[in-house]
């Protein structure tokens, strides 16, 4: 436990040094927040006030939360492990007495903690200042949202780790990474919530794939979709996906390590 905390603190501190890059990311996320809110507002205006079960205010909050979540779950651009596999440095990770999954997970939680204070908060403030905004009616929604964010980070971490593990077989995991970038953006609900899709497809995406757990569900929990029942269902689905994905990560890593051949002396 002490080690986990130390690693998380190191992750927090490491990312807090990239201040300019953080500022640039907030600017870019906010720009896309503006663009997406206007499109969703135009859609909801022509649809008569409600689209896909969301009101105007709910869609605004939804958009700013998902834009902020990009940084918190680190949806794109993590290939630290894949790089280490390619260069062989991964051996150093494997020699330590702790499974590297836990080391990376703890560090990632620290990173997510820093991102929550900056990259999640800033777009929400911008959105709340400029647009009509949906504030949760129930105080319990705030702690539920935090739990949902934590689960989202866990699911996303596991999936990113899995993408990186593919480097053990492919060496060049760029193709898989690109597929992940495309599918995760669409499936996580970054461009539109899954309930905008036709009924059966929305069902498949929301309950049979892990992607909405990464972004859409935390936003749904905050805008109180389907009341308490809906919030708890979403948290349960997220928790289930977190367990499944982490279990797969452990299994795949075991096979990957068995395959590993260390080159040179």
């Amino acid at each position: 436990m002490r080690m986990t905390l130390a690693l998380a603190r190191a992750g927090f501190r490491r990312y807090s040094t990239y201040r300019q890059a953080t500022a640039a990311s907030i600017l870019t996320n906010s720009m896309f927040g503006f663009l997406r809110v206007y499109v969703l507002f135009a859609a909801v205006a022509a649809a008569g006030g409600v689209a896909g079960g969301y009101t105007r205010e709910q869609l605004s909050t939804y958009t700013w939360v998902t834009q902020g979540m990009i940084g918190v779950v680190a949806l794109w651009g993590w290939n630290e492990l894949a790089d280490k596999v390619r260069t062989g440095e991964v051996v150093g990770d494997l020699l330590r007495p702790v499974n590297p999954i836990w080391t990376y997970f703890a560090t990632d939680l620290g990173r997510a903690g820093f991102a929550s204070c900056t990259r999640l908060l800033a777009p929400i403030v911008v959105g709340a200042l400029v647009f009509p905004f949906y504030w949760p009616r129930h105080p319990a929604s705030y702690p539920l949202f935090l739990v949902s964010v934590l689960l989202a980070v866990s699911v996303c971490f596991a999936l990113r780790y899995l993408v990186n593990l593919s480097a053990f077989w492919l060496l060049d995991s760029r193709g898989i990474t690109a597929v992940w970038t495309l599918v995760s953006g669409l499936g996580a609900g970054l461009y539109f919530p899954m309930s905008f899709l036709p009924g059966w497809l929305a069902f498949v995406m929301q309950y049979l794939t892990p992607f909405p757990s990464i972004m859409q569900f935390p936003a749904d929990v905050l805008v109180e979709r389907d009341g308490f029942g809906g919030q708890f269902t979403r948290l349960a689905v997220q928790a289930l996906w977190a367990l499944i994905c982490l279990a797969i990560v452990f299994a795949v890593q075991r096979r990957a390590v068995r395959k590993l051949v260390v080159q040179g002396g």
Partner: protein
Amino acid sequence: MAEHKLLRPYAKMLTAQVRSQAQYRSSFFIDMAVQTGFSAADFVTVMVMFGVTTALGGFGLVDVLVISGVSATGFALADLTVGNVERLKTYVRTGLLDAMLIRPRRVLPQLLVVDFQLRRVGRVAVGVTVLVVALTASDIDWTWWRIALIATVPLAGALYFSAMFVMTASVAFWWIESGEFANAFTYGGRELTTYPINIYANFFRNLFAFGLGFGFVAYYPTLLILGRPDPLGLPGWLGLAVFPVALIAAGLAALVWHNGIRHYKGTGS
């Protein structure tokens, strides 16, 4: 003949680059399929929006798809030819740019040729396909000037987006840790021009559509092609503004680039 000699090294670098990318064929095709998927995702988003609504800013699906098609074709052409200038920040950070500066060739063409990504051809194909399908689905009164317009507007758009790519990439000369900053104007610009500009509210629209000129890239030319009046009440000839706007943007981009190169002192690595 002199011109031929001048271009030959670039042509050689380009063919070498393309041939090396074509070596790993399966990897290349996966890459291209994914790139194509990224472009398609934009249109999927437009279609999904029309799954829950009947109009955006008073425009129906086919009208919006013409706007998106014009924007996507222009953007994809720019992305294919100069999009990889976005790697400038990596070259500055790692000091690789110094290697290019000491060669007796211009830096920008070197940079573009060295990283040329053939797989981006897929994006152009998606843009052109959507544009053609949307144009056939709409009942446009085809006159010679409309045909001339639809053939040239995406090219002017490509010039405009190319200027955006170069201008925002140049920021790395001053601000090394610029991160994703450029994306706000390049990819953000593409997203902005995908939809009719009357859906954006006052301040935002004035700044980006009119101030930075994004509104002239796809929206106004499309109004002229569709023969529709502007819901904002501006005159139809603004559909031709894309040509001077693209030229001005290109001029500014050249200016920023040259200042950046002069400002660059290396990172000391």
